[in-house]
């Protein structure tokens, strides 16, 4: 399962799509124009195929559905206000998105959280209050509570930020079947942290059921949120 997740992580639909080109006789202006228009038409055909596929997938989750859902392991970490956050107790009855990342991340983390925040913002109030987002830093040395709070507030002020000891956080990640974070520079400075790029969806009954790899689009999150919330009871 981890290997398959890893295969999906980092892939985007940008890379997955290929342009189609036709054959054209070189040196002829009209043929060049035809080639140009042909490749554009092929793109339009792809769009139509995408649309058909979307209709067929209307009732299925678009995230990576785990073949064997597992109970979300409990853990306790300090939040950005300094209080202990007991994961299972705080998220019981809520649809919860759990994500391990870091505030200095230049690409995956801000895109993931911005996309999630955008689709959550579209939800009606009653649905929105049934969702929690928990972010756990994988770079506690730089991600001091005020840094995490300020960073999360850019996306959504209700997002919960957790910190703590890196070894403890890596142990928690292992219990969620995620690889440990690495690449930290003990000397400090400007370094990148390698970390799991998938966001986990924990259902209100406390089971990890779906993962959203890097490259998940807002349309897919919005689609799945609707389905996941339909199966959720109000806490």
């Amino acid at each position, binding site marked *: 399962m981890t290997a398959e997740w890893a295969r999906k992580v980092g892939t*985007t639909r940008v890379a997955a799509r290929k342009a189609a080109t036709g054959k054209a006789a070189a040196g002829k202006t*009209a043929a060049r124009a035809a080639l*140009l228009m042909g490749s*554009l038409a092929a793109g339009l055909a792809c769009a139509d195929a995408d649309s058909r596929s979307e209709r067929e997938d209307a009732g299925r989750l678009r995230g990576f559905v785990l073949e064997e859902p597992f109970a979300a392991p409990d853990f306790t970490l300090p939040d950005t206000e300094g209080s202990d956050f007991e994961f299972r107790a705080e998220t019981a009855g809520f649809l919860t998105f759990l994500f391990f990342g870091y505030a200095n991340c230049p690409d995956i983390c801000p895109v993931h959280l911005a996309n999630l925040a955008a689709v959550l913002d579209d939800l009606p109030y009653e649905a929105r209050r049934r969702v929690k987002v928990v972010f756990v830093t994988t770079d506690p040395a730089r991600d001091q509570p005020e840094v995490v709070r300020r960073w999360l507030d850019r996306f959504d002020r209700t997002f919960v930020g957790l910190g703590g000891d890196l070894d403890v956080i890596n142990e928690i990640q292992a219990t969620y079947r995620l690889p440990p974070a690495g690449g930290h520079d003990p000397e400090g400075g400007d370094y990148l942290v390698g970390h799991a790029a998938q966001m986990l969806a924990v259902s209100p009954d406390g089971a990890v059921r779906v993962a959203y790899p890097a490259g998940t689009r807002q349309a897919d999150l919005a689609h799945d949120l609707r389905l996941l919330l339909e199966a959720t009871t109000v806490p």
Partner: protein
Amino acid sequence: MTWWCSAQGIPWDWGWRAYPGVWLFVAAIAAAYLTLGRGRTARPGTAARFWIGLALLWVALDWPLGALGAGYLASAHMVQFVLIALAAPPLMLTGVPDAGYAAIERRPRAARAIGLLTRPLVAILIFNVVIVATHWPAVVDALMGTQAGSFVLDLAWLFAGVVFWWPVVAPVPERRLPYVAKVGYVLLATVSMTLPYIFLTFAELPFYATYELAPPVGGLTTREDQRVAGLIMRVGGGAILWIAAGILFFRWYRSENEGMPAG
């Protein structure tokens, strides 16, 4: 080294990057212009218009605008479109001396192909199809991920822009439209730009995976960036077309009053 701007998925920084393919492309156009105009006298200001048009094209294709538009911001992508398809072609075409057009006309095959493509109905059709197709999400996402694809898209815009503006500005007597017809022709293009504008500005979700999943640049959200892109198309592109229509109308009015021949 990359030769053309494309979406690479790497975090943006303001460090300069070289795109030699862009330089070669711009240099090739400049060389063609110099060859075409060799030994021929241009009217004052004619050459300047061409070089300003070429400079706009260069700005649109090269770093930073080219790189931002290719892989980071839909709004930058739309500025590119306005410059490549709407701003640069009329300037470059009006910058070609009359003798340059005459030289093209003397080449039967080139004249035949250009004659076909620049018939007003054909030209407006090509322009409209290219505008709609090159803003279609699947097309943009498929093309922007590779340098060759990004090159094709930029070339499609330039091609469509040249074809569209040719009947308006090219001084080929037998293909000139009357001024009134030119005004209508130019304003017709504002209609085709309305469709992408509406989708971009009022869509609830991001259209393009390229920009939605790109490492963030600046403070705009993906949706805000997309709305700005729609407004740039509407306001920036529309302004160019309305200014052109205004100039044509003024010339028509003057020609009517002075008894000048139309076109």
